[in-house]
């Protein structure tokens, strides 16, 4: 029943690669933004929060289109990218950026929920015991928001695997280059003979999602183990 063509294997590999890269790319930024909105007071904080959460409410196609305007050859950042000889649009890197942008609010939200449960007096205690702010960040805030970071990363990874709308606009649907699982399924669904092929990829998709969730549960349990 599970018959995959070499192109399908490419799609699976690419999906995993894009999701992992998007997660790795977003993690430091996600942690920094979550830290800012949780612990710092500054002007324009509300605006920043709205901006971070925007991809959650915008249709992914709109995000894809805006990214195209931003990163395209004649886009706002086009000349800058040209200067460094970087070409993003219609490469797998564009798929990474699309996934990262779409999943970013989920990541920040999860990390933030984790950070909000940290008792402020722990942070004050750490400071009065001689830790500078970045020392406190690494030795207290980071380990205590680990659960949120893991939850956010798995959510983001899963979201990236399913990313379609923004990806198809900025990265296109080029088999072996930018065709991820959802794009491949979309193509099979459009062809009269692709039904069983689409089904196989759907099963792979479900399997990966289940594995991600199990991994998440496992890590969460392991972290909660300390007495």
């Amino acid at each position, binding site marked *: 029943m599970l018959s995959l063509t070499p192109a399908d294997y490419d799609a699976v590999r690419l999906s995993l690669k894009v999701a992992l890269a998007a997660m790795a790319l977003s993690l430091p930024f996600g942690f920094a933004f979550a830290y800012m909105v949780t612990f710092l007071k500054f002007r324009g904080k509300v605006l920043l929060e709205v901006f971070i959460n925007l991809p959650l409410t915008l249709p992914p196609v709109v995000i894809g289109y805006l990214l195209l305007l931003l990163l395209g050859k004649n886009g706002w950042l086009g000349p800058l990218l040209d200067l460094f000889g970087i070409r993003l649009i219609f490469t797998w890197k564009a798929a990474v950026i699309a996934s990262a942008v779409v999943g970013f609010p989920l990541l920040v939200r999860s990390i933030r929920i984790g950070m909000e449960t940290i*008792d402020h007096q722990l942070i004050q205690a*750490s400071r*009065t015991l001689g830790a500078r702010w970045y020392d406190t960040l690494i030795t207290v805030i980071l380990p205590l928001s680990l659960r949120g970071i893991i939850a956010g990363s798995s959510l983001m990874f899963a979201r990236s695997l399913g990313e379609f709308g923004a990806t198809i606009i900025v990265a296109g649907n080029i088999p072996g280059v930018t065709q991820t699982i959802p794009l491949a399924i979309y193509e099979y669904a459009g062809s009269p003979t692709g039904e069983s092929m689409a089904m196989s990829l759907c099963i792979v998709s479900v399997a990966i999602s289940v594995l991600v969730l199990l991994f998440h549960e496992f890590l969460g349990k392991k972290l909660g183990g300390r007495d």
Partner: protein
Amino acid sequence: MEIRINAQKSIGGFTLSADFTVTGDQVGIFGESGSGKSTLVGLLAGLHQPDRGEIFLDGECLFSSRKGIMVPPEKRRIAIVFQQPCLFPHLSVKSNLLYGFRRAAPEHRTIDFAALVSVLKLDTLLERGVNNLSGGEKQRVALGRAVLANPRLLLMDEPLSALDDTLKFQIIPYLKSVSEQFRIPYLFISHSLVEMRLMVEKVLVVAGGRMVEQTTSDQLARSRMGQSQVGYINLLELEAIRRMEGLFVYQWGDTELLVSAGNNQPTALFELSSRDIILFKKHPEAISARNLLDCIVANTFPAGNKIGVELSCGNRRLVAEVVVQAADDLGIVTGSEIFAAIKASSFRRLG
């Protein structure tokens, strides 16, 4: 230690306006909740920035709005023991203890880890996590962690409030002995007069965001005797001698006291309210109270519509209270002989 502060801080609708100088190694800050004690702690430790003013510790400027100085908390060497233990839940007892020690400058590291661990009786807990420790153990670890940071000042911000009565009086000796043994001056912040008297001599009284009085803890207790529900609380450290027909016999100076609520410990701390002492002009023939002390009136002081009577019993002191008319009837004047009757059940054991 010398703290010189002249600073204002507004939070919400509350304004703390601190303006005082205090010297001494064991100083209390006494006040009701909401009087501004914790805000003061925040200003001293550098956790809050005053709106304006200056703060000096031992001559060193920690904050000055005029000169634009704000020393960050990690540079002040002022450690805090909070009301909640605030232990780092992801670290072991040992790592918690060493958190501040590792961050202290090598030239300041004078406190020996092993010595402190043994004073606080934490030897067997070192490798454990902190989440399953008892309340008293947690507070001992918190105290050890603060002391090991080798601070020049320890702020104890209501460190006993979250503990039940028994634990409270078990922790007090640790708070005192650790600070004394390792020579760390402390500010003890509390709204409990009994804690104040056990921990410090000198007290600053804070009310409504201002320092209203600088006094001694005993003087404070006397001046509040009139308004207090429980009168003046005499604190008696007693040595157990023997048991007698269901009662405990304790040595108090050169007097023996019979107490109902004793235990098997060699020494115990008891409280006795000034209201539970009945005074007689002459030796009563027979009374139900098990303790009858032959005393001299050392001093009297007014407290509302009552008179506080300081009794000298051998080489020890007790404070009793009587209403003004009773004082007249008994002819209580300094130097007169008087008999004090105390029921064995009036002594309440602390801890």
